[in-house]
C-alpha cells in the first residue's frame, strides 16, 4: 500500500529529513494506520456534503480599522537571528 518511496516523498513534502532507519519504521506505522482508515471506504458518501466547520457560521468580518502593530524590537525579539530589524535566515538561492 504505502511504500518506502512514498514515505520519503511525504517526508520531503513535510520538510523532515528522515533517517534511513526511521523510514522503515514509519512506513510500517503508516501502513497500519492507513489500513485501519480503509474502513471508511465502506461508507456510502455519494450523497453527502463534506463538513469543514461544524457550526454553520458565515460572514465573520473585521472592520478596516488600524490597530497598533508590535514594536519592531518586540517583533524581532522572538528570534535569535536578526539583523537591523529584519529576521535573518540562511541565504535563499533564487
Amino acid at each position, binding site marked *: 500500500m*504505502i511504500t518506502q518511496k512514498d514515505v520519503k516523498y511525504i517526508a520531503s513534502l513535510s520538510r*523532515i529529513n528522515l533517517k534511513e532507519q526511521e523510514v522503515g519504521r514509519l512506513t510500517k506505522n*503508516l501502513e497500519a494506520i492507513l489500513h*485501519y482508515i480503509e474502513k471508511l471506504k465502506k*461508507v456510502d458518501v455519494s450523497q453527502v456534503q463534506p463538513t469543514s466547520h461544524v457550526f454553520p457560521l458565515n460572514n465573520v468580518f473585521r472592520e478596516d480599522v488600524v490597530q497598533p502593530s508590535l514594536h519592531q524590537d518586540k517583533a524581532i525579539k*522572538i528570534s535569535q537571528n536578526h539583523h537591523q530589524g529584519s529576521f535573518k535566515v540562511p541565504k*535563499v538561492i533564487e
Partner: protein
Amino acid sequence: MNLFEHPAHELLDLLKAQKTSAQAIFESVFSHLKQSDKNIKAFVRLSHQLPDFGPAVPSRNYPIPIALKDNICVEGQEVTCCSHILEGFKPPYDATVTQKLKKSGALILGNTNMDEFAFGSSTENSYYGPTRNPWDTACVPGGSSGGSAAAVAAHEAVWALGSDTGGSIRQPAAFCGVVGVKPTYGRVSRYGLIAFASSLDQIGPITKDVTDAALLLNIIAGYDERDSTSVNVPVPDYTKALINDAKGLKIGIPKEYFIEGMDPEVKQSILEAIDVLKKKGAAFKEISLPHTEYAVATYYIIATAEASSNLARYDGVQYGLRLQPQETRKSAIVDMYEETRDQGFGPEAKRRIMLGTYSLSSGYYDAYYLRGQKVRTLIKDDFDQAFKNCDAILTPTAPTTAFRIGEKANDPLSMYLSDIYTISANLAGVPAMSLPCGFSKNGLPIGLQIITQSFAEEMMFRIAYTYEQNTDWHKRKVGQK
C-alpha cells in the same frame, strides 16, 4: 483539610467569610505544588512572574490558583507544547482565555505537561518526559492534557485549563478522577491556543468538581472577535444550571458504545451511574449513533491533515529551534528546515505530520481528506438525530482505566483507539464532559461522559451535578485510597 485540597467554590466561600486570603490560598497551593510535583511531574514550567499580593493590586474576584496546559499563550512566558521545536518561544501576547483569567483575578501557576502538540492520550509523548498518575504513579495520567488533570488530582492546582481535540481533556480527567469539560466548538475562543486541529480544538476546564467546572467556564466562555469560529451567543451563568434533579430528562445510551474492549469494571460503573440518575427522575433509552465505528478513522484523517498544516510554521525561520546540518544536502535554507523539523519533532508528531500530509497530497485528497469530511457530516447527523429523542447522551469516557507508562508506546493504533468514546463529540462539535463515577479494584478512577447538544452546556452541567450530589466519588482524594 488543607486549603489546597478545597475546590474553588469552597475557597470562595472561605474568602467571603474572611476565613482566608488570596495570598494564603496561593501559598498553600504553591508550596504543596513544589513538593508534590517532584513525584508527579505535572508542571513543565512555573510562571516566571508570581502573583503580587501587595496593597496596590486591585482585589481579585477569583483568586484561584490555576494551571495552564503548555499550549496556551501567556505574554512573555515560554510556551512550547512540550516540543523541542518551540524551545524558548515566548509569545508577545496573551491568549484570549489568559486575558479573561487575568481579568478575573485567577492566579496562573505555570504550564502543565502534555503530549507534544497534544498528539497522544498518555502524556508520554512530551519532550520533557511523562507525567505520573497521582492515583498510581506507575500509570499514565491520560492525555494529552495529562499534566493539567494530574495537577488538579494531586491538588497542585485548584483549577486547570486543558485543550480537547479528540478527548484530551475528558480522557485524562477520567484517568485522574477529576472533572473535565470540552465545551461546544466555538464556545471558548481559540485565540492564543497553539493549534493542533483547528476545526476540532477547544479549550476547557479541568476541576475538582462540577461546580468549579461551571464557575471556570463562566470565566473563559464567550465570543471573541479575534476568533472567526467563536460563536456569538450569550454566555449563561452556568452555576444556575447546577440543579440536583433529573426529573423528566431523557438520557440516551448509545448501543454502539457498549462493545468489546470495554473494561467490565468500567461497564459496571456506568450501569450504576445510570441507576443513580434514574433514582433522580431521569428516563433512559437506548439510542443509536450508527457511524460510531468510523469516528476514530475520520478523526485521524481530519486532525492530522489540519495538524500537518498548522505545524508547518515550525521551520526555524522566526522562533524556537533552528538547526543547520554540517553537510549541505539540498540548499542552506531547505537543509535548515529539514534538520530543524527532524530534530525538533518527536516520533508521534512526525507520524501525524506525515499522515496528514499524505491525506492532503495530490491524488489522495478525495480518498482520504474529502471522504473524512463527508463521514464527519454523517457522524454529526447521527448526533442531530439522537438529540431529537433525548436531552443528553451518557457513555463511559474511556474504555479502560489508566494504563501503565510504556504499555502502549510501541503501538500507535491501540493508543488511538483509547479515544474511541471521546472523539465523536469533537467531530460533531457538541459539548461533552467527564466526571468521576467510580474506581477500579486497583484504585484507579473511572470516568462518566455526558454529551449534550451544541450550546446545551447547562443541561450537561445539570445532569453532572445531579449525579455528583448523589455520589461521593469526587470527594475521594489522592492518598486516601
